[in-house]
């Protein structure tokens, strides 16, 4: 059997994340410039790995499974936007040497990325059977209710009282995350306790989104406390999310390639 193409992206992702972890852990409080360079560059490379692995998975998925293919293509668009956002952040921080203003192009790309990721998850959920549509609607209703309550209390307060556009933009990510969390719960809860190769890609996909959500919550807290800088421990969660997305593409590609050989497809 030929070596699978996605393994290339997996190996690069593992190499990069290991280097990043080594630098972040050993250089805390020592060399902020090195941490910034390694972190910013690593995150771009990891985003590109996620794009590559997911493009291959999309390409390998048969055309008649169009809803799943839409999931892959929207995920790819999401990672492209994440890569562009991370790239803009890195350029501003490392080359232009200016603080990245909140509400910059980076935030535009990151906002688009969440929209695409949400659409990808939506199309995946449409391929699955849910015993009770009422429960699905209830989960989505509660999710959106919490999101709007958060928007009303938090974002509204920021706009009315402090008027900081930056805080609104940062809080938007938490808002997206609440919505994604509800959707990812629908995906993960039925699959969580049973493992088989057919559902592995989707477990990884769900966990990758969970890692991104965890990062955003911690990041928002650190930013509002003025305690965030590139190369913090929390960036490892961000990197982990990309690695898991790369694993997702690889698991799907591996599944299709492995069985294509077996069944001589």
């Amino acid at each position, binding site marked *: 059997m030929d070596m699978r193409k996605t393994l290339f992206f997996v190996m690069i992702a593992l190499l990069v994340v290991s280097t990043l972890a080594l630098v972040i852990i050993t250089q805390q409080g020592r060399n902020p410039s090195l941490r910034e360079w390694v972190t910013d560059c690593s995150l771009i490379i990891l985003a590109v790995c996620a794009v590559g692995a997911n493009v291959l998975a999309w390409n390998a998925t048969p055309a008649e499974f169009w809803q799943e293919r839409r999931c892959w293509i929207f995920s790819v668009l999401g990672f492209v936007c994440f890569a562009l956002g991370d790239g803009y952040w890195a350029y501003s921080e490392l080359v232009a040497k200016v603080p990245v203003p909140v509400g910059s192009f980076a935030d535009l790309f990151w906002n688009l990325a969440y929209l695409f990721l949400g659409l990808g998850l939506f199309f995946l959920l449409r391929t699955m059977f849910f015993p009770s549509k009422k429960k699905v609607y209830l989960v989505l209703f509660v999710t959106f209710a919490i999101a709007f309550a958060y928007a009303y209390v938090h974002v509204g307060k920021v706009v009315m009282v402090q008027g900081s556009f930056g805080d609104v933009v940062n809080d938007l990510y938490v808002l997206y995350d609440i919505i994604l969390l509800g959707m990812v719960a629908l995906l993960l809860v039925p699959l969580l306790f*049973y493992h088989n190769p057919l559902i592995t890609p989707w477990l990884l996909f769900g966990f990758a989104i969970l890692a991104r959500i965890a990062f955003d919550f911690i990041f928002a807290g650190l930013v509002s406390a003025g305690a965030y800088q590139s190369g913090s421990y929390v960036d490892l969660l961000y990197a982990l999310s990309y690695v898991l997305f790369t694993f997702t593409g690889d698991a799907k590609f591996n599944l299709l390639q492995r069985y294509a050989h*077996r069944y001589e497809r």
Partner: protein
Amino acid sequence: MSMIRLVGSKKMNSFAVFLSVIKKLKKRSGVCVLLSKPYSAVEKKLTQAVDPKKVFFIDTANNLSQGDNVVSLPIEDLTGLSLAIDQAFQVLPRENPFLVFDAFSLFTLHNDPKTVAKFALFLIKTMRARSVETIIVRGSEGMNPELQSVLEQAADKVETVS
């Protein structure tokens, strides 16, 4: 051909009906969902009935089955099952594929019959869209009347094997 067939027998048990059905599909590829007997217990009979290089088995009777052409899922996880069936068809050749359930009524032992009926309609709709011939073998112990009615209405052909 995306025909939906509901098959039963008054004399034979459901697994014997299932075997007679899949023997006729020997040269084709497809997915078999085992509900009444674990794969490990009937592996020999199954490999004699079909070409194991063309068929994927999803074992809901034993949660430990795992192999080159078999995965396991609990019978009550209809969401996981819908996803697994969809994924299994992606790895198979797409010439005239089939989907067979060995004793569909067993779903109602672990799930609400209305939910099972909805699951059947969801699968039938999906399989028609994918041009997959679907054969539902009823359980030999009889079937919930509501589920039976739904399946008979949705099926293109209702057969009794003697």
